[in-house]
């Protein structure tokens, strides 16, 4: 059975599933219970599940992410919401030094089965402190799993996978995708963690993308098809665990690779994909790997400036054209 849901409704459905099917799950964060979240992700959950299961916290990301860790270590499965991914930076100690390390540093004796749910990326008029795409920081940190759902169905499936994972998982949604609608398989079994997906087969060039840039890549592919360029689009979905095999298999078919993300260029996760491709796909590559990313500037707020900073379908299409002509 599949239902047509908006991305944000799919998130709500996954959280409903989690609180309904797992009594050890608790949900907390800023304005998530009575207000239902600034984007409606938790709408109706407090009414249905009550304050024992979902509650509002003070504006204290370090405090409540640490609380999530201590609760996870002692028997609960918390889902903590960071309202904007940018706010995770005030709690990086708990994420990097604490949540990511306790399992390893105790030789596996403690577990931290928790989810940090956040939304990221630019939106028109949002300033630099509400526009970060910080996935590379988390993917750089051993001990964390990192999920970036690009569709309503993945918003539902990947969040459920994160909830049942015994590892700490950062689920970073894209705010700009919240209004998008698509079929959601609400009765599907919970998927195993990880796995990239070829979402558009093509023969000439591989575009690897995640989060909002998947739809940008698909739009670019449609434009390029009219120009006779057949683009294969790979939705990476999880940065950890990383399914590079799917990327490598695609590059083996196409011989060309473009990586696209909204985060700025230097040290972005695209650099990791490019480095692995150089190491593992060298013989298959007929052109240099190209990276599509925001330039290395803090995100401006004015739409006129965002228009030349934020990568879109046209940016991807330009990179593909350069790659196939190289």
């Amino acid at each position, binding site marked *: 059975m599949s239902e047509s849901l908006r991305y944000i409704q799919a998130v709500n459905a996954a959280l409903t599933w989690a609180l309904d099917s797992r009594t050890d799950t608790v949900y907390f964060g800023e304005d998530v219970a009575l207000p239902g979240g600034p984007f409606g992700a938790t709408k109706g959950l407090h009414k249905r599940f009550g304050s024992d299961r979902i509650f509002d916290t*003070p504006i204290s990301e370090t405090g409540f992410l640490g609380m999530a860790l201590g609760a996870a270590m002692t028997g609960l499965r918390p889902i903590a919401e960071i309202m904007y991914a940018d706010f995770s930076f005030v709690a990086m100690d*708990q994420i990097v030094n*604490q949540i990511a390390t*306790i399992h390893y*540093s105790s*030789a*596996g004796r403690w577990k931290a089965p928790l989810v940090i749910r956040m939304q990221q990326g630019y939106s028109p008029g949002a300033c630099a402190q509400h526009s970060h795409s910080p996935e590379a920081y988390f993917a750089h940190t*051993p001990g964390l799993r990192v999920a970036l759902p690009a569709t309503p169905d993945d918003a539902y499936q990947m969040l459920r996978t994160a909830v049942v994972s015994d590892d700490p998982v950062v689920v970073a949604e894209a705010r700009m995708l919240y209004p998008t609608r698509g079929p959601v398989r609400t009765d599907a079994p919970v998927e195993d963690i990880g796995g990239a997906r070829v979402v558009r087969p093509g023969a000439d060039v591989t575009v690897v993308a995640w989060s909002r840039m998947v739809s940008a890549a698909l739009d670019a592919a449609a434009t390029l098809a009219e120009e006779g360029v057949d683009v294969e689009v790979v939705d990476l979905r999880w940065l950890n665990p990383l399914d590079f095999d799917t990327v490598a298999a695609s590059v083996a078919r196409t011989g060309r690779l473009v990586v696209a993300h909204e985060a700025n260029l230097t040290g972005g996760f695209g650099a990791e994909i490019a480095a692995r491709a150089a190491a593992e796909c060298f013989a298959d590559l007929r052109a240099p790997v190209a990276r599509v990313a925001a330039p290395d500037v803090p995100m401006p707020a004015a739409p006129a400036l965002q228009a030349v900073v934020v990568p879109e379908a046209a940016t991807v299409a330009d990179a593909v054209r350069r790659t196939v002509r190289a």
Partner: protein
Amino acid sequence: MGLPEDYRLMARIRRFEERLAALKDAGEIPGSIHLCNGQEAVPVGACRALRDGDHVTATYRGHGWAIARGVDLTGLFAEMMGRDSALCGGRAASPYLSDPGRWFVGENSIVGAGVPIATGAALTAQRTGSGAVSVVSIGDGAMNQGNVHEALNLAAVLDLPLVLVVENNVYSEMSRIEDMVRVRQLAERAAGYGLPGRVVDGNDPDAVAEAVAEAVDRAREGSGPSIVEAMTERLVGHYSGDAQHYRPAGEIAAAREREPLARIRRAADAGLAARLDAIDAEVADEIEAAVTAARAVSYPDPATAKEHVYV
């Protein structure tokens, strides 16, 4: 419990730390160590108020809390020697060790970071109705960390069963705490969170036990967190190798007159003194046996270095 048993536990911690320092000097301990000599009455008194299932979270100066909670001495030595200990397999060492088997959430190398984590253990106790409490120890310097502020307010508004024990040894690492805050006692800050706060003699295990028991009772009955500030003194440096030039002449000598073991010794009559001598001898044997056993633990297999990153 009572005097002889408290003395034994404090002597065990003291002897452990002294032996550890000697092992460090001898090159058997690879990393930095932070000793609690002089502060033993705080964990010993506090843990007297606890029962099985109550979680304890400490700092990198937390060997005393681990020992007071019953963590295995051989495991502690082996862990600090970088061996494949049953505690953390050599991955944590002196400042970050833990033991789920003894409800020891563990030490922390980031000042104050244990308080939010201990708040989470208190959340589990509250949501599952286990009746457990979560006790977390920090030093005086940690009261200036934002993580402590956030966690205290969070625990307060959620009425969580949390007890914060501030071990005020008057040094924020290597700086006088009076130069770092504008309150006379750190427990005064409790009022800012709407919590009860008490100041006790941290060199008296009975005083610590009484104050922590009161806070634990309050937590168990669902009335929320408390702060206990235990005034104490460090007889040794902030870390191994700290020359302590910043401490005024005579301060450590005066502290040696006030420290908990010396205090019991001074008040003891001949009969008690003989019992304490016997306890000292037993503790010394016990510690030496633990060192010997720890030396027999193998070093971790390098092939396992990538294990346990993920479940």
